Every structure is written in structure tokens, then in C-alpha cells.
């Protein structure tokens, strides 16, 4: 069944407002009315979340709005993915990304925003948190059959751990299996090239674009 306009509008509105309860209720109503769950993800959720991402990028909204929209989206996704699985179909995730702040660094708000943005674009995100050892990045990439590995550092004192982590992937012969992207307060494009990353992004929206571009290359 096509998505009725009222469902489309109410779901988009609830997501934009970060109203998890309302978003969940609309999603359940839609499923009860036999609306195609995959269409809800592709035609409503992803465009709405992209719109929210743009507003964040432009400084129109801030972290709280992003967090609340993320929470609402997660709540809706659980129901829709379950329904898709029940139909014996597969979701169309663009890929799996491992994210973390490197060893020694505990500044993770930027990484959290990046994680929210990747989720908003349908990626499966494995968030390792902060102070992540090189081997933990490697293990997570292997265990989750990742496509991308994203790491960040805020401070110049912890930045070398990005280099060390990339070096470990190299040493283990795994470097070519994953696209590695880097970012964070002290990381520059020049430096990312120097340490052999596949890409650098200045901000969260740029990271998602970069990730998509690398996977489509």
C-alpha cells in the first residue's frame, strides 16, 4: 500500500520534533494499515532525517534536537525493520561503520553527532565510544564485517593514535578491506593524507557524504 499523505506528514513532523512517542504511534498505525515499511524508511524517514541533518549543519538546530530526532528514528526503525524481516525482505542499509574516539582521548560529543548522522542515513553504526585502542577498532571491524572505520581525535596529543590505528590495520594485512575516515578538532585534510586515511571530513554531514562516496567508488 502506498503511504497516505496524513501518515507521511505526521511521521515526518514527529521525527522533526523529536517526539518519539508520536513517531512510534504513527509508525504502528501505518503498519496496521498495511503501509509498506520499506517505503516508510526510504520515502519518509531518510529524507526527513537528511533535512534535520541539514538544519543542524546550518546551525538552525543544535545537539538536543538532533538527539531527540535520533531517538525517535531509532524507535520507529525497530518496528519497521521487524516488519520488513517478517516479510522476508532485507533492509537496504548503505553499509556498516565502526566509530570511535582514539585511545587517550575522551572528547566524544563530535563523534556522537557523527554517529547520529550516519544512523540517520540508514547506516548500521557500531559505536565503540571513546578511548578506543587500535586493536578494538580492528576487532570490531572484523566482527561486524564493517565497510567503514571512522575515528576521531580532538587534541593534538591524542592525534598520533589515529596514525597508530591505521598502522595496525596495515600491519595485519587488513588495510584494504576497510575504508578508513578520520576527523576531529585537531585533524586536518593534509594530516589525514599524511597518515594514509581514505578520507577526511570537517563535520558530521561531510563525514556521511564522504562515507557514501567511498562506498560507491
Amino acid at each position, binding site marked *: 500500500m502506498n503511504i497516505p499523505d496524513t501518515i507521511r506528514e505526521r511521521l515526518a513532523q514527529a521525527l522533526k520534533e523529536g517526539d518519539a512517542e508520536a513517531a512510534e504511534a504513527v509508525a504502528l498505525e501505518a503498519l496496521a494499515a498495511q503501509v509498506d515499511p520499506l517505503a516508510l524508511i526510504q520515502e519518509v524517514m531518510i529524507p526527513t532525517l537528511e533535512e534535520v541533518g541539514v538544519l543542524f549543519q546550518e546551525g538552525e538546530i*543544535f545537539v538536543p534536537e538532533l538527539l531527540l530526532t535520533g531517538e525517535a528514528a531509532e524507535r520507529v526503525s525497530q518496528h519497521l525493520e521487524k516488519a520488513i524481516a517478517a516479510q522476508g525482505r532485507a533492509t537496504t542499509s548503505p553499509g556498516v561503520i565502526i566509530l570511535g574516539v582514539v585511545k*587517550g582521548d*575522551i572528547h566524544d560529543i563530535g563523534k556522537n553527532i557523527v554517529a547520529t548522522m550516519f544512523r540517520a542515513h540508514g547506516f548500521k553504526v557500531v559505536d565503540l565510544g571513546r578511548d578506543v585502542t587500535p586493536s578494538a577498532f580492528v576487532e570490531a571491524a572484523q566482527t561486524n564485517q564493517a565497510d567503514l572505520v571512522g575515528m576521531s581525535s580532538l587534541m593534538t596529543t591524542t592525534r598520533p593514535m589515529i596514525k597508530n590505528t591505521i598502522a595496525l590495520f596495515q600491519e595485519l594485512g587488513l588495510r584494504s578491506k576497510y575504508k578508513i575516515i578520520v576527523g576531529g578538532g585537531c585533524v586536518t585534510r593534509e594530516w589525514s593524507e599524511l597518515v594514509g586515511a581514505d578520507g577526511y571530513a570537517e563535520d558530521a554531514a561531510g563525514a556521511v557524504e564522504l562515507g557514501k562516496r567511498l562506498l560507491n567508488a
Partner: protein
Amino acid sequence: MRTTWLVEIMKRAQSGPFMKEKDFELALTKRIRELVKEYGIQYNPAVLVPADDDLADRVFQAGLQLFVEFGAYCQSTERCIRFSRDEVLELLAQAPAAVTLGTGKDAVVMRHRGVEDPTPTVMHSGPTGTPASERYHPLILLSCAQEPLVDCLGAGSVSTYLGETIIPGTPLEILGARRDAAVAREAVRMAGRPGMHINDVAVPLTCAGKMAACDPGSGLRPTDGILVSQMVELKTDFDQLSRVAHLYNIGGIRVDLMTPLLGGLGGRAEGTAVVSVADHLLGVALYDADYHMFSLTHLNYVNNTDPMGIWTQALVGQALARNTHIICLNDIYVMSGPGTKELLYECAAGAIVGTVCGFNMQGAGTTGGFKTDHTTGLEARFIAEVSRASLGLTRQDASALIPQIMPGYIGTLKNPNRGLPFPEVYDVTTVQPKEEWLALYYEVKEHLRQLGLRL
């Protein structure tokens, strides 16, 4: 001292309510939004320095309520360290209203300042928040310490040791911390102010590194300070609490560093003001701080001189000035760099709002911390001068003046002028500002005089 209280905090850190950090953040951000509505707190871009006592008191009450409800999140145990309202108020009552910083003839007394307080501000400077190179770090420190109006020095951060990158928790961190402490000590001696308070050595990120910087002979003394940091927002860990334990035992000055993010979990200016008050209360209850360093940072611009940043500082300063007697310092964090007029205009806006709204001064952290060696003593001199000239201004005066200063930098928010590194704006032999940098300083000073500031 209060080591018994630290024992109690450790108990609470291990027995308080368990929460995943993400859940803590989500609950916090939701509650901040509710409190902003509940207390009727509203940002008004037309009045950047509100003269509304009731609004300031509501910001304080909202911050107090937030802190009582959430406490501090201990990342080491994933538990919340909670305090009752009575405990928080009692701890606030016990907090110092004045603290002696430094020793001998170079000692200064930094006091709690009220709103529109005529008491001169104590001026902290140094390359705090701006990385420095091994080569120019000693000269940058000297350029700040030699300024007559600078009272205290922050040793700042150098990211290498003999050219090798310092990694936290390694021997190089220990060596770097000891070197930077010694360099700061030498800078104040060379400036003829050997007893000047040094407010931290920033290179170490671990308690072990901070401890290594403490050395009464050639490093930090008990009359100096060590930063005990909060992680945004309302978060701590055992490494930070260990610093408190060490400082209790050596009798050192405990400096509560908070870096609330404008646009972060607090959201816009209103919520950020509320959580910033709560952050200060964390510094009182958990760190038993001698003074509090408020380093507000805009999520996108990495400064605190944009309109919302100015408003937030104005309200947080007034809320704390009116409802507590704690000693507060606003860290003027700017996006511009030396050798630019933008830097001076940003510093002026920060100095005026801070001075009028109950803060002491710290600055300037330049270029949003992005550019190495882009920091000098001249902007510290300028902040101190503007602060002196702002004594006697009312909040209404400040609110009228700052919008006239903002055009000097506001157009560059999205494309900041990062300026020039130290050796290009200072003579590295005489450690004096070059003519071009001085000319800009005099030009902006003259402009501010024309705007009515008694510089």
C-alpha cells in the same frame, strides 16, 4: 581539608544510580528543555547583557534544580553521584569567597565579584587553549608574564617533547609536563615576578602527568593551581577526582575547569546557561574548587563571543554573582588570531561582559585552538585594560556597547581571520610586539575610546 568528603564521593560514585552515558545525556537534554520552559528563560538577541535580576535568579534556580536532579555522571563507574539540595547549599556556603594566588609580593587575592562590581578583576593569561611549539612556548609565556596588568599565568600546552609527539599516559607526557612547568616557572622569574600564580600545565591529560608538574623547586608550587576538568556536561571520572586528592594533600589550588558547549546538550543560549550554572555547582560539590574557570565554547564557531555566547556569559555570571559567593573566571575564547583587529574586538566584547557580570578574567584562547603559536601577551594586555575601563559600567551600558563592538568581528564567524603566529607579530629577541601589531592595538583602542570606554 576535606578528604573525608572525597571518601563519601567515592562511595556515591560506586553506589549511585546506574545509567548508560547515552541515557544520561538524553535525559539531561530533555530535562534542560523542560526547565528552560518551567523557569521562563528566554534569549533576547536585542539585549545581550540583560539587567533583569529575576531572570538571573531563575537561571540559578533552574541550574540548581538540574544539578540536584542529575548530580555528576561518573564515567568510570557509569553511575550518578547525587547530592541533596541541602547538601549543595551547604557546600556552596562553605566555598571560598576569596583566594590568595601566588606568593610573596607577586601574590594576588582573587575575590568573588558581584554584578557591576567596582572591584578590579584578576587577570589570568598565557597560551591556554592555544597550542604552542617547543620553540616559541617560552617566549609566548614571557610575553604574557611581563605584562604589568597580568596577575596569573597559564602554562598552556606543547604537543611535542624534543620533536616527538607526546602521547598521554606515556613517559613523554611526564617529561613534557615537567618541562612545561619549569618553562612557566622560568618565564615568571624572567619577568621579575617569581611568585606569580601559575594556573596549570595543560599538556598532561592524566593525573600522573599533572602530579609530575608539581615540584616546589622548578615546577608548580602549592600556591599554583591544577585544573580539575569536567567532561561535557556534568561528567567526571576517577582521574579527575584523583587530582582533587593530590591537591588536598599538597595544599594546592583546585581549579574547576568546565567547557560547556553552546549548541551541545544544553542546546541554545537558555539551556546552556542553565547547565553552565549546574556545572559550577558540580565544581563546588565534587571538586571543592578554589575557583571556577568557565570556558564556554560554541559548538560551530569554537569561540564564546557570538551573540548567544555573550548572553550566556552575562546570565551565568549574574546568576552566580547574585546567588553564591564563589569565585568565577570567564575564559575569553575567540576565533580570531594575533595581528588582526578581529581578535581585539572579540577580546573587548568578552572583557566587558565578564567584568560587568561578576567574573574575573582569563584570556585569550585564540583561533579556537586551531593554530599553533597564534597567541601573544598583547591581547592579554588589551583584555586587562578593557576590563579596567569597564569597571563602573552598568549592564545597560554593556548591552549598548557590545553591539557596537561586534561588527568588528561578527562578519567573520563562518570564515575567521586566524591571523599570524607569534614570531610574525613579536620581535623574538626583545619579546616586544612588532609595530604592525601595535598599530592595530592602538587603532582598536582608539575606536573603543570613541565608543565611550575610558581606555
